[in-house]
């Protein structure tokens, strides 16, 4: 075999033999092209990302080191910062959520207010319009507003914006903040104000969620990690966290790597699909070459020689297909960063990556040869006897046991590749397990589609409708005639449809989850940070403006004092303290579960009637885990100076996907009523204008009260998912296009056979319209079956995913899926019939003569 590959004649023969079929050969190998293109594009994107992350590492954080805390820094921490300041540059930032109000536009929106002291960012720049706006911010009562706000409300430079009690002049529009993705602003628009006005806004009150940050630019020789290590004990005490530029780089690197891996997997699926196309095309090709091979064998060619001829041909064609694919991939990779732009917190430059091309080309080539081998191996078993008896064994070439080896090899490659695309933080075993699951999923999908195809062929033959009219009967019979395209088209088109439809369903599923909350009679507007003395005012205001007060939820802040008898101080001393012990908890009190909660252990809270009753609280499962407590364990709290001893009465599961204030700790009634508290007030606006009206009235009367508008969240989620799905659909497009390439390929390959058939039919008196109708029927049936199976499979997959991963029952919407089916069917028929057009333009004589 190896010797035959180095035989000159084998190569000459491979070249000569391909002469008349070269176009045909190229066409089917082209089904591998798009998969390769996808791999090259995604891999070079991966490399661009990696490079961007490493070159922009420092500007990702804007500093060498950042310390962040949800509370003002403790005195000890302040001292540490001061001593660091002796050798490092320091900048401080305070940020908090607040409504911003644009009087001219009379619009409000919850935004993230930031006030920076010092020279932040030390690395990278905050880009604004006009350019100097960030540097001159502190020169007056200026505010820099996020581009999204400017666009959403039509705010211009020079307009005013009211934040809390202070009116600011919009002095610039924020374009880019280093290390933050554009999409972040859709969720929480950023507004920068001078730090000296923070107090006068009067927004920092009890319960306000303020984040304090300190940024450091260290001297060149100082290791940020060493600084963090030295600060560690102090940070632990105050539940502050420190991040170095390197850590930020690593986390971002991993996130982007996951994104890249996911896209890579989608690209790989296109390649697999292309592989199926190659296998089927080579199969047809081998059948066409039976006589040639038999003749060569008759003349004395060894089976290895005959096999080598076709191996060389497929290899060469594969190489060409893969090269074209790589070229396309390079062009696409120039385009991908722009498609992803809003998600990337970094500037990604287009690079031509040789390693990406290498990876794409070698995987593409490997897969095309492996898939080609499946049918090609049979060449080794073609008997020279065929020269004497063409018709007897034409149909079934004896298959080769080596096929199973090749098949096993393909499965291994898929498994290995899929495993490589899983999260690199997992253990090798876990990654191979996940890879096996992906492979299994692919295998099951392919298997089911193949089953549909086989079932169709058997069913159509067995239950052949003898009474249908001729055109329909002939079209149906085409599904199972020799050299039919049923299996390959149902596989490729079905799988392509399944992918696209699954993407669509996943998106619908995520949106449906959010929409659950916007149902009739559910609150859709939440006001939080309502102070005790504002409660009545807020409720009256709402009532006056036709907004029902649906719920007023009290919130008390407290800290943990001891768990199971061990105080936080003791735990700190023996270093067993966990971060969950140090948080400030926002606790509410009630004795009933709401609809997002389910009890998993113990009994729900009972009212505490006398000071002697023990206090049984309800905590959620995650807190139980991180505190390592169970029902009846003791937890003591420090409620703003007052010690309160409690027992865990129950453990709850909370459905956090609902947009509703949820609490990890719930006290029973009768304990916290007199503690200092603030409120969240839930209401329902009847429409968008009503919602805007309510929010505006609220901002004017109570500037510190913030609102979450579920409608806005919904549209935000929607727009983010739109962007995400655009990316995914773009990748799925490769699969669909591969399916189309396979379709075109198999139509053209079988064209000659069709020509003979149609010529025969025409000779026998069929008019052209009948011939076209028969073909239309055939492709109609194929398109219908393929898209139906694809859609059904995707629906099943989405229901299973919803049930197992997202834990809810999902009913896919049928209408869009039917629309997708129609598109697929139309595509199949148009390409199928168009591709066979040449059939009619040839004279019968020409066609009959062409057959040797």
């Amino acid at each position, binding site marked *: 075999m190896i010797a035959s590959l180095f035989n000159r004649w084998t190569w000459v023969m491979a070249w*000569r033999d391909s002469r008349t079929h070269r176009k045909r050969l190229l066409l089917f190998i082209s089904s591998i092209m798009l998969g390769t293109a996808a791999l090259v594009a995604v891999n070079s994107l991966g490399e661009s990302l990696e490079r961007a992350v490493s070159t922009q590492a420092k500007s990702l954080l804007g500093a060498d080191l950042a310390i962040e805390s949800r509370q003002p820094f403790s005195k000890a921490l302040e001292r540490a910062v001061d001593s660091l300041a002796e050798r490092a540059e320091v900048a401080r930032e305070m940020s908090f959520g607040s409504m911003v109000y644009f009087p001219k536009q009379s619009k409000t929106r919850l935004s993230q207010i930031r006030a920076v002291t010092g020279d932040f960012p030390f690395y990278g720049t905050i880009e604004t319009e006009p350019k100097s706006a960030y540097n001159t911010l502190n020169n007056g009562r200026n505010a820099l507003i996020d581009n999204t706000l400017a666009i959403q409300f039509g705010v211009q430079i020079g307009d005013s914006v009211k934040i809390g009690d202070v009116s600011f002049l919009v002095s610039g529009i924020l374009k880019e903040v280093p290390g933050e993705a554009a999409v972040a602003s859709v969720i929480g628009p950023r507004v920068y104000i001078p730090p000296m006005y923070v107090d006068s806004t009067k927004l920092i009150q009890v319960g306000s969620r303020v984040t304090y940050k300190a940024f450091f630019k260290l001297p060149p020789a100082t290791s940020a990690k060493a600084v963090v290590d030295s600060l560690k004990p102090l940070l632990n005490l105050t539940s502050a966290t420190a991040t170095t530029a390197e850590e930020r780089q690593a986390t971002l690197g991993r996130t982007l790597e996951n994104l890249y891996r996911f896209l890579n997997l989608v690209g790989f699926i296109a390649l697999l699909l292309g592989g199926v196309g190659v296998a089927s095309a080579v199969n047809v090709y081998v059948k066409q070459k039976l006589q040639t091979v038999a003749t060569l064998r008759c003349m004395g060619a060894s089976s290895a020689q005959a096999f080598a001829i076709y191996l060389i041909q497929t290899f060469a064609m594969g190489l060409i297909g893969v090269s074209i694919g790589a070229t396309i991939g390079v062009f696409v990779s120039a385009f991908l960063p722009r498609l992803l732009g809003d998600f990337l917190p970094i500037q990604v430059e287009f690079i031509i990556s040789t390693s990406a091309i290498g990876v794409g080309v070698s995987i593409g080539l490997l897969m095309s040869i492996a898939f080609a081998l499946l049918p090609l191996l049979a060449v080794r078993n073609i008997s020279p006897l065929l020269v*004497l008896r063409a018709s007897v064994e034409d149909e079934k070439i004896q298959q080769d046991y080596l096929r199973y080896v090749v098949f096993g090899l393909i499965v291994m490659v898929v498994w290995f590749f899929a495993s490589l695309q899983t999260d690199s933080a997992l253990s090798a075993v876990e990654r191979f397990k996940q890879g096996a699951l992906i492979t299994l999923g692919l295998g099951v999908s392919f298997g089911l589609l193949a089953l549909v195809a086989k079932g169709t062929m058997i069913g159509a033959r067995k239950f052949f409708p003898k009474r249908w009219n001729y055109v329909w009967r002939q079209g149906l019979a085409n599904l199972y005639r020799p050299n039919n395209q049923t299996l390959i088209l149902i596989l490729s088109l079905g799988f392509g449809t399944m992918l696209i439809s699954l993407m669509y369903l996943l998106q619908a599923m995520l949106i449906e989850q959010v929409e659950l909350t916007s149902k009739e009679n559910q609150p859709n507007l939440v006001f939080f940070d309502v102070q005790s003395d504002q409660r009545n005012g807020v409720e009256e205001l709402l009532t006056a403006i036709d907004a029902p007060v649906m719920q007023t939820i009290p919130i008390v802040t407290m800290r943990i004092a001891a768990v199971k008898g061990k105080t936080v101080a003791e735990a700190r001393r023996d270093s067993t303290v966990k971060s969950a012990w140090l948080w400030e908890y926002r606790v509410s009190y009630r004795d009933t579960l709401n609809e997002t909660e389910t009890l998993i252990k113990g009994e729900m809270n009972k009212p505490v009637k006398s000071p002697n009753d023990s206090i049984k609280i309800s905590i959620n499962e995650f807190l139980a885990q991180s505190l390592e407590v169970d029902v009846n364990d003791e937890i003591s709290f420090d409620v703003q100076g007052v010690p309160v001893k409690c027992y865990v009465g129950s453990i709850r599961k909370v459905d956090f996907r609902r947009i509703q204030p949820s609490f990890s700790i719930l006290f029973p009634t009768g304990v916290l009523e007199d503690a200092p508290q603030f409120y969240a007030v839930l209401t329902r606006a009847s429409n968008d204008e009503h919602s805007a009206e309510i929010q505006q009235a609220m901002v004017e009367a109570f500037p510190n009260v913030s609102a979450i508008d579920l409608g806005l969240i919904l549209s935000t989620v929607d727009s983010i998912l739109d962007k995400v799905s655009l990316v995914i659909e773009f990748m799925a497009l490769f699969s669909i296009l591969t399916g189309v390439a396979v379709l075109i390929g198999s139509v053209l390959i079988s064209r000659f056979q069709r020509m003979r058939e149609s010529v025969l039919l025409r000779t026998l008196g069929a008019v052209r319209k009948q011939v076209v109708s028969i073909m239309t029927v055939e492709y109609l049936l194929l398109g219908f079956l393929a898209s139906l199976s694809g859609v059904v499979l995707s629906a099943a997959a989405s229901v299973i995913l919803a049930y197992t991963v997202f834990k809810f029952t999902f009913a896919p919407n049928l209408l869009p899926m039917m629309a997708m089916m129609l598109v697929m069917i139309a595509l199949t028929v148009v390409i199928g019939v168009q591709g066979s057009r040449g059939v009619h333009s040839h004279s019968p004589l020409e066609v009959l003569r062409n057959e*040797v």
Partner: protein
Amino acid sequence: MSQTILSVQDLTKTYHSGEQTLTVLSQVSFRLSEGDSCAIVGPSGSGKTTLLGLCAGLDRQTSGTVSLCGITIDSLSEDERAKVRNQFVGFVFQNFQLIPTLTALENVLVPLELRGERVNEKDGIELLARVGLEKRVHHYPTQLSGGEQQRVAIARSFINRPKILFADEPTGNLDGETSEKIESLLFELNREAKTTLVLVTHNLELARKTERIIRLKNGMVVSDTMNEMQETNFNPTTAP
């Protein structure tokens, strides 16, 4: 005594389909020496093609022995048989069996090229000229008529100077006039090269041009006669 080229001993071929056993060839024996020409005749379905296939090592017999040029091919592997064919055997088929993707010349040269020797194109061109196709050397099979294609096939069958030539209904797909030309070409070349010829046909006129006629019926040899009437004094009116 001249050398034995083909020896067939008790050759039997059966096919099984389900429970039934179909005996296509039963206990056939004969022997051909260098330069002999022999026709195998018989009605359609009598097993002529089967016999030819077995003699050329294209198929495996159920029992019996075949040896070609002193080599017993029964126990040889497929690839070893291919080598034997390449060295000693030439073929002409009813349906020509030219490789559609190769030109006339390339088709003719295939057996030589398969040997892995350096190929002299001149040999091929000369042979094509010998069969009257010097002007069609670079044409593809689809550009040639049936008769021309068969002439290419004949040129191909002689290119490796075979010891034995198998022809299965070589004129079966051709019209009368063309057939005659092909026949005379085949016999001429055969005589010049002293090649042993095995000709399968149901055409008795053609069969008479050989020295010996083996008649098959239902897979059995019904007669094996030396042919007195050679083509020189051939008279169709005296045919039985």
